[in-house]
């Protein structure tokens, strides 16, 4: 049995998937920024997280991809929505009605965008090419963690500071309520 001309997409497929995921990431990020309802913004953010996780998977970084899902979708997003539910307002406003705030948000956003744009433009990314076979990324990440000359352990220790900040925030919020 001969197969009529079925185009071999094996070579261009990664590129197609990349563009689809990138488009999804951009569109859902825009939706998250522009959604009038804060809950819709949170759920649009979920789509953005998934798209970015897909990009990681496309790069062969499967551990990072699923960490993205478990940390951002399973953890941060759930806490975010929980916070919104606790504020108990159907039409939770972001406080952007006031022109001054809106102006400030635009300025801050533009400055951040320019900083990131300069940083990305100034970096030369070595073209590594997508790996053809699945790599044992977990082992490599584990070794990087325990490498005495690596930077991951100090980096992770810095996250203790975040914990201290959380405890401090909870303490302050509690004081305010009882007074």
């Amino acid at each position: 049995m001969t197969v009529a001309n079925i185009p071999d997409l094996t070579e261009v497929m990664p590129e197609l998937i990349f563009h689809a995921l990138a488009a999804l990431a951009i569109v859902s990020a825009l939706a998250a920024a522009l959604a009038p309802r804060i809950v819709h913004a949170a759920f649009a953010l979920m789509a953005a997280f998934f798209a970015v996780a897909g990009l990681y998977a496309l790069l062969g970084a499967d551990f990072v991809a699923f960490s993205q899902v478990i940390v951002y979708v399973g953890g941060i997003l759930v806490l975010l929505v929980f916070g919104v539910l606790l504020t108990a307002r159907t039409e939770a406003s972001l406080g952007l009605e006031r022109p001054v705030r809106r102006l400030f948000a635009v300025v801050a956003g533009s400055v951040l965008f320019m900083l990131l744009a300069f940083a990305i433009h100034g970096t030369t990314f070595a073209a590594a090419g997508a790996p053809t076979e699945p790599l044992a990324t977990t082992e490599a990440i584990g070794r990087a963690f325990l490498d005495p000359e690596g930077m991951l352990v100090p980096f992770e220790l810095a996250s203790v500071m975040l914990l201290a900040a959380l405890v401090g925030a909870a303490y302050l919020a509690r004081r305010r309520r009882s007074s």
Partner: protein
Amino acid sequence: MQIWLDELRGDVSWLGNLPAGLVYTLGIVIACKIVLVYASLLAGETVWLERRISGRMQARIGPNRVGPQGLLQFLADGVKLLAKEDIIPATADRPVFILAPIIVFVGAFAAFAVIPFGDGIVAADMNLGLFVVLSLTSIEVVGIIMAGWASNSKWAVLGAMREVAQMISYEIPLGLSALGIVLLAGTMNLSDIARQQEGAIWNWYVFRGPFAFASFFVFFTAALAALKRAPFDLPEAESELVAGFHTEYTGFRFAVFFLAEYSAMILFSILTAVLFLGGWSPGFPVDLDSGIARWIGALILFIKTILLLSVMIWIRWSLPRFRIDRVMYLCYKVLLPISVVCVVGLAVQVLVAIEWLGLEHAVGGWLGGK
């Protein structure tokens, strides 16, 4: 999967003429379809199992009319649910309301792709297997919150908030108790973890010392909380919250929630059997590696799954519901310390086995080898 597809492309000429990428993609899609249909059917039969067991426990009969012993009851229920009116409340957040059951369904079924049903019988044999299962099942929670929020009903919102409170409590002991097994196994590939437990019954990870034994019970308890099964069925709590997060759902959308719940039960039962109870090992040394024998192994794993499902059902119809603060107390102050001690203990166990006893890995020799 890829190796198997390469062999198939070599054997079947017209498949060999197709582009490799297309064959792999189609192969993966077909494999996932088979797994999806299988998991759905099994979920339907689990509903029957639950109704029959609960009937026995309450001295009544349960469904026994449709098919032999009522085995086809789920088809009748399915037709009934499809025939019901599909109601979307006027005040509901329409797009989110429609999206929520889909997200829950994805969360419950996607993880089946990496679950081994037997030696080599797995849709996607990933190195990250266990991690993938834990991360994909956490998606389900987002769907439940969406359902609770979008329904715009007090019962549903309360159910969704309970689900969040419960989730942030059980996830840590669940992950930590599974991490102990990863320490012992040295891999997160579920097929490899199961293979390491072949041979005698003391090769099963649950019997590899006191810490692994305790981890098994922590894992199973946290899994019950993850499944929203009684005594942890607070997000639904039919005697307090009508039906909790899916109060406003009818017809097919409700059926999707129902199906997702039971398929998640099957998922966690297989996962528990693979992680702790030897996977497809019958408990004595026997060669189940090749050909038809691996289907016998699959049958053994299936029996273990059914037994674990029965235990879950047994627990549900025996124990009363927890209060939400008691759930959080149990997870944070009881299960979490136990699981931390277990992880540290298992780390020491592996270290002793490698450093002092000079074993290759804790797997090979701790409390008996292959």
